[in-house]
Structures are given as structure tokens and as C-alpha cells.
């Protein structure tokens, strides 16, 4: 990972530098005009955030049953990233809601469920920081339950009466004029955010590794 870290970082930076120009090329959406362009980043952050949450759940489960230290590091790094991407997604979502629904917070099913997931992972970090000895296992249990709510968030818009766009909105893009380029930009932004997730995850895991090394050296010095 350390060898390809720098090239990956450069590619991610290049994608992010180009994305505003690419988004600018998309045609205006018929009712929301300029504001619709929030969507490209909004969707991409949630994809990255959902990936982080699911990876965190799997890594937490693996840590619980196998006791693998690496899995624990992945879990804590992805939990932090999930909170950050989730916060960005919630903020861009409220901006969107202000324009599309006329209110900052509509109390809609998916938005509420996304906030719940955000709270679960903030709880994860709180337990991790203030739980005292043995908090790794506590937070791992939290991670597994947090990931279990992710499918509910995804499906909530299809089950409940709500104003958030349904999951079918993506596949309908191909049939509208200018939809193909919009679809391409969505994929482009998603790729950029996924790469960002990978790069930050690698850096965060390295930090955790160094921290563990430092702790070990302290203990050796004390003996």
C-alpha cells in the first residue's frame, strides 16, 4: 500500500481538481437549475460513506471473532470516515432540501435514518475514546449494529411515504435528454470519492499502526 499511496493521492487530487469543470458541462436540470449540481457530490459522498459503514461493520465482526488487530484498525478508521462523509452528506442534503422541498429539515424517512446511522457511529467514536479498557470490543459491537441499519436507510425510501427521491431515480436518468452525461458525471464523482476514501483510510491506518508502535516502545522503555 505504501508504494502506491503517492500515485493514488495524485490521481485523487487530479480527479477532484477536474470534477468542477466536468460538473459544469452538465446541462441544467429543468426545475432546479444550478442547485441540482449539489447532487453530484451529495450522491458520491453517501456512496463513500455507505462503503465506509459496511466495511466498518465487517471489520468489527472479524475483529470480534478472530481478534485481528488489523481489522480493528480498519474498523476505527472507517468509523471516523463514515462520520465525516455522513456529516458532509447530511449538510449537502439539507442544502438540497432547502431548495427542492422548501425546508431545511423535512423529517423524511431516509434523512432521519441517515441521521440515526450518523449518531450510531458518533457513539462508536465516543465509546472508543471514553470507554476505558476493553472499549475496542464494545465499539466493535456498535459497528456491527451500525452496519446492520445501512440496508434500512437504503430501502427506507421505497417502503415509507416520503419525499426523498426513490432508488429508481438513478436508472431513469438514461432516458432523459442530457441524462447520459449526468450519469457519467455521477460515476466520475463517485469514483473520486471512493479513491479519497481509500487514500484517507490508508493514511489513517498507518497513523494507528505508528500509535501502536509508540505505545509498545513506551512500555519497553519503562521495563
Amino acid at each position: 500500500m505504501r508504494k502506491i499511496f503517492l500515485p493514488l493521492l495524485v490521481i485523487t487530487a487530479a480527479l477532484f481538481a477536474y470534477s468542477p469543470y466536468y460538473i459544469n458541462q452538465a446541462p441544467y436540470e429543468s426545475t432546479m437549475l444550478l442547485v441540482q449540481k449539489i447532487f453530484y457530490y451529495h450522491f458520491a459522498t453517501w456512496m463513500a460513506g455507505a462503503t465506509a459503514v459496511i466495511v466498518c461493520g465487517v471489520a468489527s465482526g472479524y475483529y470480534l471473532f478472530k481478534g485481528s488487530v488489523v481489522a480493528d484498525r480498519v474498523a476505527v478508521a472507517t468509523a471516523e470516515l463514515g462520520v465525516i462523509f455522513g456529516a458532509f452528506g447530511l449538510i449537502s442534503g439539507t442544502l438540497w432540501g432547502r431548495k427542492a422541498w422548501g425546508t431545511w429539515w423535512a423529517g423524511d424517512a431516509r434523512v432521519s435514518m441517515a441521521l440515526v446511522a450518523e449518531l450510531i457511529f458518533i457513539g462508536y467514536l465516543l465509546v472508543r475514546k471514553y470507554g476505558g479498557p476493553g472499549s475496542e470490543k464494545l465499539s466493535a459491537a456498535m459497528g456491527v449494529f451500525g452496519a446492520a441499519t445501512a440496508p434500512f436507510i437504503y430501502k427506507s425510501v421505497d417502503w415509507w411515504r416520503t419525499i426523498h427521491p426513490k432508488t429508481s431515480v438513478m436508472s431513469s436518468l438514461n432516458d432523459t435528454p442530457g441524462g447520459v452525461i449526468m450519469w457519467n458525471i455521477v460515476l466520475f464523482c463517485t469514483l473520486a470519492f471512493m479513491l479519497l476514501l481509500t487514500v484517507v483510510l490508508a493514511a489513517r491506518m498507518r497513523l494507528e499502526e505508528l500509535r501502536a508502535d509508540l505505545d509498545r516502545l513506551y512500555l519497553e522503555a519503562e521495563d
Partner: protein
Amino acid sequence: MFARVALLVLKKDIAIELRSYEIISTTTFFAAACVTIFSFAFTRDDETMAMSAAGIVWIAIAFSGTLALSRTFERERYGETLKALLLAPASRPAIYVGKLLGILCLIFATEILVVPMVALMFQSPLFNRPGMLLGLLVTGTIGYAAVGTLFAAMLVRARTRDVMLPILLYPITIPVIIAGVEGTTALMLSPPDEAMASLWLALLAFFDVVFVTLSLWMFEPLMTE
């Protein structure tokens, strides 16, 4: 064997509780106090907001449930009996189910007081469809208690357990509380929206399956040192 161990743990908890009535009396009192405070907060110009009753029932259950959970395991910790229980040659999931049943008995006992009390104080039509209300209460309580028992059990060893239990428990059980509140609200409409209520009931049953399965699965690795 599994059922026998679970029932033995349940019997033990009930026997201890019946000696002092400590948890049952404190949690029901706390729930009653909660409802009373809400009845002041939600009364405007002598006209009580009947529809807020659904939320109040579930909040009172969630708050007093936390009290029951932490006291049950605090007692185990105080007597160092949880270690003995885990050392016993019994399967861990069976012990978990036994503790869960004990907690469920406590919360159901609280509900027997809280639900009629809310119906009375808020003059709300909670009992429009008693069967469906019972279903919502049972499934909702199982979902809440399943997660609660797991987290309360593993927090026994943590230093900051009093703060940590609500922090861990509330975010995870919000979906259960939401489903309970929405389902109960649908039942109070006139006429009651049975289709809506049964949708929420199905969702609650789904949550129960997910939460109980995950808890049974994780209890063993979480309770080993």
C-alpha cells in the same frame, strides 16, 4: 437443554426480584414520574394533545427500560455472580436468552402501568385496537430489550457503564422506537389505519429478528475476557 438453562436463569432473576421488589418498584415509579411530567408539558389550555400519547408511551418505556437494564446487571456485578454464571457449563446464548426474558418481564410489568396511565391522563384512544397495540408493544419491547441486554451485559466490566449504556443503546434502538411510535399513532386515528399499523408491526418483527440474531451471535465473543 438450551430452553432449560434459559428458564433457570429467568427463574433465578425472578426469585431475586421477588425478595426485594427493588427493580420493579423503582422502574414503574420512574415511568409514572415520566408520564406525569409529560402530562404537564403537553397540556395547553386544558386541552390535552391526545395524539402525543404514542410518543410518550414509548419514551417512558425506553427511559425506564434503561433503568431496569442497568440495575439488573449492576446487581450481578455487585454480587460478582455474572462471573459465576459465565463459568457455569452452560451455553452463552442460553444465558443471554435467560437474562433477556428477565428484562422483558420487568419492562412488560412497567407497560401494564404506563399504557393505561397515558390513556387516562391524555384521554387518548390508545385502546382502539387492543390486539394490535399488544402486538406493537411486544415486538417493540423485544427489539429494544434484545440490544439493551447485550450492551448492558458487556458494559458490566467497563468503568463508565452508567454513561455508556444510553450512548450505545439509544442510537441503535431509535428505529425501533420510531416504528413503535408511528404504529401506535396509526392505531389512534379515527378510524384506525390498520394497514399502516400492520406495516410498522411487520417492520418491528423484522427488527426483532435482526437484533436477536446479531445479539445471540455476538454474545459469546463479547463476554469472553
